[in-house]
């Protein structure tokens, strides 16, 4: 029994390594990721949950062009700060690592369409557009040809202007991860 399990394990490791060795340079790689992100507001006791995703194209081994989108789904705290939040951002990422492990940092300016749920006397906040800036650190494991695992930490900075006391800081840090899909356009 032990030998059988051991053989199966060796078989899977061999297949895994074969898949890994099949990876080439990341230049020309296009990847898509979608998942759920747990957010933590920087200046408010609120923990929003987002559906998020990004598309990334590796123009070279070190550089990729990246576009991301974020949609508020819920908040884990009663009376969370955000009532509406939809964001898009575009930017560039710098990569380090090898064919199997990829570490990247990205900077992405963008815009968010947002509205706080804060209650005021004689004033109801309305959704509005605001500039944003997102910084992201991502680790990816390219374990096979169409799929990879990833984990990503982001800080997304934005402000809701026009509230009675001035601005409301709607910046947050979020953590996301899961399974991604990629396709190669260059050999």
């Amino acid at each position, binding site marked *: 029994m032990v030998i059988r399990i051991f053989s199966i394990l060796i078989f899977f490791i061999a297949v895994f390594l074969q898949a890994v060795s099949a990876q080439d340079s990341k230049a020309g790689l296009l990847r898509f990721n979608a998942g759920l992100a747990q957010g933590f507001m920087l200046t408010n006791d609120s923990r929003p949950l987002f559906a998020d995703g990004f598309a990334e194209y590796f*123009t*070279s081994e*070190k*550089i990729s*062009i990246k576009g991301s989108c974020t949609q508020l789904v819920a908040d884990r705290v009663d009376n969370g700060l955000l009532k509406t939040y939809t964001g898009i951002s*575009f*930017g*560039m990422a*710098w990569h380090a690592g090898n064919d199997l492990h990829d570490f990247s940092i990205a*900077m*992405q*300016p*963008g*815009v968010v369409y947002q509205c706080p749920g804060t209650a*005021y006397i*004689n*004033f109801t906040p*309305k959704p509005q*557009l*605001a*500039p*944003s*800036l997102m910084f992201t650190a991502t680790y990816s494991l390219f374990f096979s040809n169409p799929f990879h695992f990833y984990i990503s930490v982001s800080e997304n*900075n934005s*402000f809701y*202007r*026009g*509230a*009675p*006391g*001035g*601005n409301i800081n709607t910046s947050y840090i979020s953590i996301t991860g899961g399974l991604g899909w990629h396709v190669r356009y260059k050999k």
Partner: protein
Amino acid sequence: MKPLRISLLLFILSTAAVSAQTDSLTPAGQMSVGVRSSWGLVYEHNWNRAAFGSGGQFRLRFSDRVNSDWFIDYLQGDLGDFAKRTDVHIGWSVLYYPFQNKKKLQPYILAGHCFELLRISENTNDENFVTRKSASVQAGAGVHLHLTPKSDVSFVAQYMIHFGTNIDVAENPVTFSKPGGIALQDHILLHVSLNYQIADLW
């Protein structure tokens, strides 16, 4: 037979043209697209605070030493705690490289023109607002950090002067008025841009 020869000649010529483009040895003709994040350090009177914005740009290089940025920025900022401002900048700058090098860091100076659409509105009452269109000039300095031969991060600090109608703001109650005349309003604009070369046009 003759049309075949002409077709063959055209094909050879087109191939030669393509290879000439890809083998371009000078940076002239390079075209890049990019995104940028901006901070406007607007401190007029005693109520303005820093504005923050996002934007995009494309860059067209005229020669080895001369480049150009064509940009649009969308910025928002506070006027104390009683009003907010929204600025849209559309403009262009010419970049000059004083040092001809191919190093990782490439400093430059820049100057150009910009058009601005400004909207100031009262907090809690967006119907109480004033708008202004103005033209401006800007000049400053920056540096490219070349990450790869085709991509760079650029850091720029520039001084921008707007020529437009004067706007007076009163706080209690919040009122906006245009007393007439042209006002000069200046600020420092900082931005970081991420650029990627998409074409080499000549």
